[in-house]
């Protein structure tokens, strides 16, 4: 049954490849691709940095960078970890949200909020090169 469906599908792909004259393989990419992926990531890191120093992220004008210059002392490599003050194992974003609510007197961000992704990207980028240490206090 499955075979019967597969055959026309494969035939169609082959037809497209032949028509375009390019051999498409899933695991092949060019320097240009790598550059694009880096650029995409860095554009989000840049947004994260903008949010990091922004007095608008919370409600009281306090910015993340005031206590965490260059995102230092955020230790993204140690998450998920047991955050004893909360009594459970949490991902880094739970601490980001804790900071948003407390020192910044603001609102939390959802996990898939582009702002949250940008903050996580910036924090991880500033910590690049440090070995993973999940659970470390």
């Amino acid at each position: 049954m499955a075979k019967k469906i597969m055959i026309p599908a494969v035939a169609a792909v082959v037809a497209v490849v032949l028509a375009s004259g390019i051999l498409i393989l899933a695991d092949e990419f060019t320097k240009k691709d790598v550059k694009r992926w880096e650029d995409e990531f860095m554009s989000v890191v840049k947004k994260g940095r903008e949010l990091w120093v922004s007095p608008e992220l919370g409600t009281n004008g306090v910015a993340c960078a005031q206590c965490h210059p260059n995102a230092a002392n955020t230790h993204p490599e140690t998450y998920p970890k047991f955050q004893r003050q909360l009594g459970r194992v949490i991902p880094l974003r739970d601490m980001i949200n804790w900071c948003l609510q407390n020192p910044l007197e603001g609102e939390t961000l959802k996990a898939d909020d582009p702002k949250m992704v940008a903050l996580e990207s910036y924090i991880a980028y500033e910590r690049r090169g440090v070995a993973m240490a999940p659970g470390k206090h």
Partner: protein
Amino acid sequence: MRGFRTTRRDFIKTAGALTAVGALPVSMVELAFADSQNNFTFAYISDAHIQQIKGAKFVRNWDRGLIRAVAETNLLQPKPDFVVFGGDLAQLGKKEELDHGLEMLSKLNYKFHCVMGEHDYYYDLGKYWSELFGPHYYSWDHKGVHFVTLNSILTSDEWTFNRWPTDEQRMLEMAGLDNPNGSPFMVGEKQRAWLRKDLEKVKRNTPVVVFSHSPIQKIYKGWNFWTDDAEEVQALLRPFPDATVVYGHVHQIQYNQIRNITFSSVMATAWPWPYPQSYAQAESHLPKLTVQMNRADPFFERDATGWQFINMESGRVAMNYNLYNNTDRTVAFNRKTGHPEDSVYQAADRRIAPQIHY
């Protein structure tokens, strides 16, 4: 923490209760001196970063830090001869922030001296600060010690006068500790010439204590834990066997000895900063002598902040760090070893896990 409210009146009540059970910091215990005439104490409060939100609304967290430091300093026994405020009273150099900060500092029962911080300076280049606190640098003598206050957060004329379209932007660019658009601090030629002249009339055996906002030594340039002409200033202090520099800005415990000069940082009342080594992309030169403060617990908003009580011990600084949510620390000059040492944690085997930063 959010929703946490304590009035000043509540605090004083609490402080009174603490006194009753003898739980006040060690530094408030009366100290006995061999030659009581030459010995005295003073207190040091720094880096309050009073931050206006809008109108009469200020960031509560930073207000609480300064209010607490002032209230506790007023409880000191013996009474300090004076108090020094080590700079960064304001966050963005605004009149409202300096006024509100002064309002809180005015509650001190003692005479106080102020040091200029970059957050006080780069909006109007210290104009309003001067109206409130006087000259940007000056010296005075007290019980045989020569005290000097420097404005160490100056930078190049080009950066100060020609680079930024508005005063607000200049202030914001310098206010970001990790902002690559900032500029290295310096004391500058004019002030060094003044210092040379000021020190000419001081006898060589006089203890000299310099108060500056930035460290007059080079630790990490990226966050301005740095003074560009540090070596030139150090050279001016070289003739004095008992020379000390006390600095703010770094929001953490640091101490060092460079030849004749002992360096001691003070804590912030507002918030702590990471040690530069915690920034994985940078190289720092934290003095090897320094036993680091405990890692801060953000859930206690005053943790890793505090104020200092300083015992002059006949010309050398014994720094008592009053830490709100940690055990207090004492770092005093040891005449035998010739450098400052922590009274408990100095030996490698005495250090505790929370002092390890990464």
